[in-house]
């Protein structure tokens, strides 16, 4: 059976003005236990690629520029 693309609002938000992933930083991507963050090929900034979040917060706590914020996933808000 073919696969569909389903939209999903993701809990981790990155402020692209503050994110320095384009300067080589990968801290948030490195520390995520679920490995759901990536650096975008087009913007060079970090983003949440997979909606598989434990809302645990290392990405936010360890970000050197305060660019990352973790929200509570909608389904359990």
């Amino acid at each position: 059976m073919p696969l569909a693309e389903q939209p999903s609002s993701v809990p981790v938000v990155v402020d692209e003005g503050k994110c320095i992933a384009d300067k080589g930083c990968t801290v948030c991507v490195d520390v995520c236990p679920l490995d759901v963050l990536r650096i975008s090929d087009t913007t060079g900034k970090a983003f949440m690629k997979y909606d598989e979040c434990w809302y645990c917060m290392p990405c936010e706590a360890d970000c050197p520029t305060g660019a990352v914020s973790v929200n509570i996933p909608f389904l359990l808000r």
Partner: protein
Amino acid sequence: MDEITEGMSQVDCDILVIGGGTAGPMAAYRAKKKNPNAKVILLEKANVKRSGAISMGMDGLNNAVIPGHSTPEQYVKEITIANDGIVDQAAVYKYAQNCYEIIQELDNFGIRFQKDENGDYDVKKVHHIGTYVLPMPNGDTVKKALYRQLKRARLLISNRYMATRLLTGKDGRIAGAIAVNTRNAEFLVVRAKAVILCMGAAGRLGLPTSGYLYGTYENAANSGDGYAMAYHAGAGLANLECFQINPLIKDYNGPACAYVAGPFGGYTANNEGMRFIECDYWSGQMMQEFYNELQSGKGPVFLKLNHLADETISEIETILHEVERPTRGRFQINRGNDYRHGMIEMHISEIGFCSGHSASGVFVDDNACTTVPGLYAAGDMASVPHNYMLGAFTNGAVAGEHAIDFVNDVDFADIDEDFIAAEKERVLAPTKRTDGIPPNQIEYKTRRLVNDYLQPPKVTRKMQLAQDRFAETREVMENEMVARNAHELMRSLEVSSIMDCADMAAFASLFRTESRWGLYHNRADYPERDNENWFCHSLLSKDGDGKMTIRKKEVDPYIIPIEDDEKDAYDKQRVKAQA
């Protein structure tokens, strides 16, 4: 991004530790400390810096046996009673004797524990009998402090490698493990003289009430991979029917947390704001009373703090919102909740396996040895009951120090190249399909079935139906699952662990035809405890034909005797009706 490259490399080491959460780092650290010349590799599916149950730290030690506050003998007695007597005391006794030394080691690492004005550890009483709860004012720094020590000891760390199967030699001895990189699907074969499994709970077994797959009580990365790997290597697994079910903040699905609030005067209440359990320490019996109240006209259940002074609430709030699960604070703000003005709705967690809180784990003796020679297990996945974070550290140390002596006397076991080739094929199968069912749908269905059919109260016919549905879903998993990149491949491997754990949960629960451990193994059609036939462990394993099998195993003779009038201390959980 996440493209599959399919390379393969091989490394040799003396000890391979799998899992870099709590027990794993301590096992690797202590092994290396005892023999600095040994080659010790720490393998981790995520990144050791922030992996495991203590990713954001811990608010305190829940089972600290500290001279002057409690004794190892008293602790062994308490844990034996809390587990309805089904305990091999040697491992619990060893933990209780060793854990104070581990606290001092953690203190040296820079993790502060709460002390009173005399400089003595400020231990609080939460358990029914003894005093073991020690707050950690800078508990958010645990993982950082630990990581610093690993770097200093020059341990070899391999992040983003997920172990998929253990290797055993012809003689049944451990030979190593196969792992796959979660970013590019490259394989790594590790030959090792000993392997220590520290892979955490099976926390993605039941489905949280929110329906969000990753909104689990446990760190959602803990998908039961260690239980599945130990099973396939032929190791015995003990008392899997003794499920983990924990009280939590409803929907948020993290601890509420009465261990923190209790010593300050907070407690678990019903809708009338009344206390209904004598003791907030998590046991199956306590969870049964919690469940009864939830189902009753006095439900649901709440965390009550609003009778406390403002500064006391602020102190509790600081702990709850900064350590372990810091997004708790954001959740409460979204809901408009304030501990000062109302009570916080609580619920019970989805089921899982976790000896950290209950007793379901890979069977280990008091040296952390499993039933497979050279294979060790520690932490939430090993069978030492109620061992919490300090148990993971302490038993991790036990495993590391025993394994480093074991490897002195052995050489590498032979590895089977055919097995490795077959495993590579099994792992990559979902990436060879262009269409089919994605892992997230197979996972959702499996875990929904776990909720429908395995959640206590357990019913024989329902559990048999579960086995039928699991078999159908497994068929799909093995023949139709599709993964489009390395990340989805990791998820597909996790689904396989979840499926194995679901099968084991049903199989073990059907075996024990009695009720025991309160809610954890409450069988509606066998409601009584049956000490005559079931005062024993259950030991599940894979037989020579690859079939699941299970048998009774005697409880080892007690080291610390339990008097008849003490045995039922944990059965009297309900607050007596007021006259």
